[in-house]
């Protein structure tokens, strides 16, 4: 608390907020659906630390940084894929074969003030490390769709979009290294105008620039007019993923060549889940060079779901979590020993019990009950009922 100021600081720092019980309960339901889905495909949970060295991050943009006591510059982790890559390069350096890892944890990114930007974001995701080829990409893509659907999200034909960074890079392959990387970083920043201008200035013939522009606009069936191994890879991944998770939408997975994520580490297949009200709910793809940057080259692919956005999308669609079992609020008749014993027998019968008033219900239904004796209570309608009967009634 700031000394000298009279008013205590009650609000959280900009971009951070409290999650109160109603929301927290809904997030738990989502968390459970996601972690169970990840586990059912063989993904093992792990928890990297909250803080990483700033210098070990692939991009210094948007880091929330501070000096550690040993004066090294550290950052709140901006991204879990990077943390997992670092961890794998250290802890699984000698491991051959596929690692299936999952996480559910917050990440932190700087946002300009006054933009309503959140600086703490909860990510749920998986990384499939050591496996390459379309079947690995398809596994991860299908798992994303399964995860979203198991949470209750309604998908349509445009929700899941799949691109390929290799196709984009190939469009500008004739350019020299330096202008090509400038073109690609402009595309990652969303500046299509600047990217194409840069390519033209670097000597790319006008008709090739026009061709690149057209290719970057290709979506859906238009991809059939393109050729190349990377194009067939994209199509194959989408087909295989639909086999793995047919889902509720026929032909989910829209090929989209212009899908270029902002993060620099993707090398091949990339994908996003989009929602009309909320924007990007999840993103992922193949990042074969990232772990190598930490000294242990390994092919890898994965995705991260922005859990708070997923929650917002579910809420926008009218989703509410399945009712939690009601909470019995037990009011003492004066005999404290009987009250505690009664609470024990209600709990033993499988009921949720709170003694006394409950000021924050988080949307859970309350059943008020007054203690009669060690195993019986009186309900609001005047009936006296024993613990086992009450449990049976509430279970219906």
């Amino acid at each position: 608390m700031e000394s000298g100021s009279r008013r205590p600081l009650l609000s959280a720092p900009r971009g951070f907020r409290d999650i109160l019980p109603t929301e927290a309960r809904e997030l738990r339901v989502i968390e459970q659906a996601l972690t169970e889905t990840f586990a059912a495909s063989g993904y093992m949970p792990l928890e990297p630390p909250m803080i990483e060295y700033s210098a070990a991050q692939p991009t210094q943009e948007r880091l929330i940084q501070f000096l550690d006591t040993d004066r090294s510059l550290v950052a709140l982790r901006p991204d879990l894929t990077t943390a997992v890559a670092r961890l794998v390069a250290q802890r699984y350096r000698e491991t051959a074969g596929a690692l299936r890892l999952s996480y559910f944890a917050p990440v932190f990114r700087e946002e300009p003030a006054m933009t309503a930007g959140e600086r703490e974001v909860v990510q749920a995701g998986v990384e499939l490390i050591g496996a390459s080829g379309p079947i690995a990409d398809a596994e991860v893509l299908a798992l994303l769709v399964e995860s979203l659907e198991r949470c209750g999200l309604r998908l349509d034909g445009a929700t899941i979009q799949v691109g390929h960074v290799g196709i984009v890079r190939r469009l500008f392959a004739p350019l020299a290294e330096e202008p090509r990387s400038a073109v690609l970083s402009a595309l990652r920043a969303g500046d299509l105008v600047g990217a194409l201008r840069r390519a033209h200035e670097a000597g790319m013939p006008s008709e090739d620039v026009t061709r690149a522009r057209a290719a970057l606009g290709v979506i859906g069936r238009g991809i059939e007019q393109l050729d190349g191994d990377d194009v067939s890879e994209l199509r194959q991944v989408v087909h295989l993923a639909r086999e793995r998770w047919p889902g509720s939408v026929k032909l989910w997975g829209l090929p989209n060549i212009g899908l270029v994520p902002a993060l620099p580490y993707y090398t091949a297949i990339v994908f996003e889940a989009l929602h009309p009200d909320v924007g990007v709910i999840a993103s992922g793809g193949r990042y074969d060079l990232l772990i190598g940057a930490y000294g242990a080259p390994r092919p890898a692919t994965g995705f991260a779901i922005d859990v708070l956005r997923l929650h917002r999308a579910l809420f926008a669609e009218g989703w509410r979590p399945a009712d939690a079992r009601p909470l019995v609020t037990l009011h003492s008749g004066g005999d404290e020993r009987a009250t505690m014993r009664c609470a024990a027998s209600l709990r033993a019968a499988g009921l949720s019990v709170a003694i006394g008033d409950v000021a924050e219900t988080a949307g859970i239904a309350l059943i008020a009950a007054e203690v009669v004796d060690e195993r019986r209570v009186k309900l609001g309608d005047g009936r006296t009922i024993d613990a086992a009967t009450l449990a049976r009634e509430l279970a219906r």
Partner: protein
Amino acid sequence: MRPLRFALAQGLLLNDALAALRAIALDVSRVTPGGRRLVVDGGGNVEFVLARPSDIATYVERGAADLGIVGKDVLMESAARVLELVDLHFGACRFVVAAPRGALERSLDEYRHLGSLEVATKYPRVAEAHFRARGLEVEIVKVAGSAEVAPQVGLADWIVDLVATGGTLRANDLAIVEEIAACSARLIANPASYHYRRAEIAPLVEKLADWASRSRSGANQ
């Protein structure tokens, strides 16, 4: 789903933007520059929203609008994460560094002796990025308007400003030291909307790109 929302910058660009939209057969008849209705129906599941130029990027970044027409200058200063899809070529202007005419040598001498220059600008982000890239040590003085008087009144040595014809600079006896960037109007899109609603958006983008290249080759003839 709500209509496709197109954010248009009020002010200098609005008439050109409306001409472009009219040329691709969108109904802009209900948009009245200076009018009080700021969200108007454009027919065919399109609506227009009018806002200040610097707010257009915010609207589109946050998905309150799907598409927008706004100057590159505004985009550079806002650093909003939006897709820049088409250069519409109108509203051309340049970000420049300017100094009092004849005083360039003196200010460079000052830089050698005093180690830094003061730069007044309405565009601190653009100015800072430019001088950082050039490796010049400057102190940015943010002003809300009329940066061009800053050197005259001793507020700053140089200015970074947006110029169209250069008339204002000449009138204040300033000369361009260097150009930072050429700017013109851009068609921008919210990234998620652009991908999710491509079937609706792509035809508009194509028509505007055609219109822009035709109007440009027309202007060059």
